[in-house]
């Protein structure tokens, strides 16, 4: 499915009307993203759909290589040069981001509408520029501020992300910061232009556990204070449990299950989601080997037949190897892409570990998903 590049003129005009909390803000539908790697085609995202509502935190979870980062990057037009959105639409405020190609269009989105926080704060800041300058840079761009005003904004942002002595910190270089401080600085730079959506791409993976909690808390507070929507990409279900209102589970370039946080944690339907939940270390029993998903994810260079998870799924049905399952709606907010929900399928029990989860973390202990 090739798309023309002709209708882009309208794309740059964004609908400025306010979106009420819980209203639909961004809607990605049937996204296919492909990369050309040394002459070979790789389908990183395969017909993935996702919605993000105003003011919510949506967590996208999945193993590395499941396409979650790629999908998020496509919202900012930040795919690598050899990759492109091949099909689908990303509707945001009346514009289809999937059709953006000119840098001019993206400059209206990046930073000022959708900002992104990277995984590794050690490398996300330019080592040769002061932290302050890198925050102010964003402010100058999006708030049309002069240098003095930008500095004030940057100082305010530094304070906002909990930095003591912001004036001194402003003039320091990234290598003078600890990892946690750097991530705060990155966040400060990301929010300096007041975005509507903050994409956090595994923002705590590279940090110490103690720092992780601080950063997560910071993001949560900022979201509340600034009324942002947060798209949280992670493979850490523990983090998800703390942060997410809703969860989308991705596997091999597809969203396989999507629902409110509590629905996913307590009523997961997809075997892959089960497997993910079962891998939570918190669920391990003394003397019992920790659960691990067996096998490796499929190569995305090849066409995948049937359910991509089938070869690794001990509960796979014959049909999984032949046909790709459709989405089955579990509740109005919950759907899963597995043949197990087909009426013809045998009733299979969810695994023991998942039940154990329910017992260990009773309803309500999952912070998100109260809505």
């Amino acid at each position, binding site marked *: 499915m090739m798309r023309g590049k002709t209708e882009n003129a309208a794309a740059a005009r964004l609908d400025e009307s306010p979106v009420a909390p819980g209203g639909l803000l961004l809607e990605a539908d049937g996204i296919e993203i492909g990369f050309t790697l*040394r002459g070979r085609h790789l389908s990183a995202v395969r017909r993935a759909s996702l919605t993000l509502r105003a003011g919510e935190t949506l967590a996208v979870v999945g193993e590395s290589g499941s396409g979650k980062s790629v999908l998020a990057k496509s919202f900012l037009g930040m795919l690598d040069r050899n990759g492109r959105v091949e099909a689908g639409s990303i509707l945001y405020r009346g514009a289809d981001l999937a059709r953006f190609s000119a840098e001019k269009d993206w400059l209206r989105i990046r930073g000022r509408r959708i900002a992104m926080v990277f995984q590794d704060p050690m490398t996300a800041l330019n080592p040769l520029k002061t932290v302050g300058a890198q925050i102010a840079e964003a402010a100058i761009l999006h708030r049309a501020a002069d240098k003095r005003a930008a500095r004030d904004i940057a100082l305010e942002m530094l304070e906002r992300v909990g930095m003591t002595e912001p004036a001194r910190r402003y003039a320091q270089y990234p290598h003078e910061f600890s990892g946690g401080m750097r991530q705060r600085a990155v966040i400060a730079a990301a929010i300096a232009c007041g975005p509507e959506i903050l994409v956090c791409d595994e923002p705590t993976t590279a940090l110490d556990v103690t720092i992780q909690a601080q950063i997560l808390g910071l993001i949560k507070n900022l979201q509340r204070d600034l009324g942002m929507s947060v798209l949280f990409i992670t493979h850490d279900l523990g983090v998800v449990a703390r942060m997410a209102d809703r969860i989308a589970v991705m596997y091999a370039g597809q969203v396989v299950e999507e629902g409110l946080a509590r629905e996913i944690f307590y009523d997961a339907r997809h075997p892959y989601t089960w497997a993910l939940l079962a891998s939570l270390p918190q669920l391990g029993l003394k003397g019992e080997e920790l659960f691990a998903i067996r096998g*490796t994810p499929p190569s995305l260079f090849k066409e995948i037949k049937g359910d991509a998870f089938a*070869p690794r799924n001990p509960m*796979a*049905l*014959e*049909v*999984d190897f032949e046909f790709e399952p459709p989405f089955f709606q579990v509740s109005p907010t919950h759907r899963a892409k597995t043949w197990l929900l*087909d009426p*013809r399928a045998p009733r299979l029990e969810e695994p023991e570990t998942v039940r154990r989860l329910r017992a260990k973390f009773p309803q309500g202990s999952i912070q998100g998903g109260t809505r």
Partner: protein
Amino acid sequence: MSDRIEPALFAPAAFDAAAAERGGYESYSYWRSTFRTFMKSRLAVTLLLAMTALVAFSFAYPALSGADPNAVALDTERWNLRPGSGSGPFGTDGLGRDMWARTWHGARTSLLLGFVIALFDVGLGMIAGAIWGYARRIDRFMTELYNVVTNIPQTVVLILLSYILRPGFWTIVIALCSTGWLSIARFVRNKVITIRDAEYNIASRCLGTPPGRIIGRNVLPYLVSVIIMEAALTIPYSIGAEVFLGFIGLGLPLDTVSLGNLVNLGKANFMLYPYQLAWPTSILAAITVSFYIVGNKFADASDPRNHV
């Protein structure tokens, strides 16, 4: 669509652990990936073929044709004949010698020179570098030696040695290798130190594996790609150095047919008989450029970061 699916298919399938593990990936092989990545570049492949052809012809022609590149024509009419005029495809030089034969003999000499230098540079550099990297005790000494040697301008060494020793094949080899091996050794040393302290090697050492074995088994394979690239790049460098030495009168003896000598002889007559410079130069450039590009492309290809 889903309605048409055979209900029988909704039966549990047997779990195949091997299939799960396969995941659709071919098993990764460093060399296969390197090879495949390299073959992806059409330019590199073309030049590799050209390079192979040039090298093969440079060695085959002198061996098979029996043509004597130093065969002098006593008939002065046969001197300085332009290409084609009954004088071989490249014409003849100021003594009626066949430029075609001379060019290929010259290419062989220069390639041989390059190969030998590459062999010594890389061989010596590797061994010294591996020892240097592994034996902490000599590190200080070697580092000082490296500092001293790299502080002597290369031309000084080149000229000095070429002058003290008699001009000749081995003199140039010695002159070029005397400094060349050290930079490779340094490179290898840095690599070795990185790998040496890698955990699996520390583990291996703890298990009592002798250092020699660790170097040979665990360290050197990592260096092979570096080595091949260095070797490939040494060829154009040493050919260039031979031309330079010829220019200042310290190259190979002039009755030795080499590309450097052909270039320097051709240069003297360039305004009069441009072909005497043009042909050897073209072959020389073809060799150096193809080695240079192939070497670089190989370096790219051997970098695991570029592997799919």
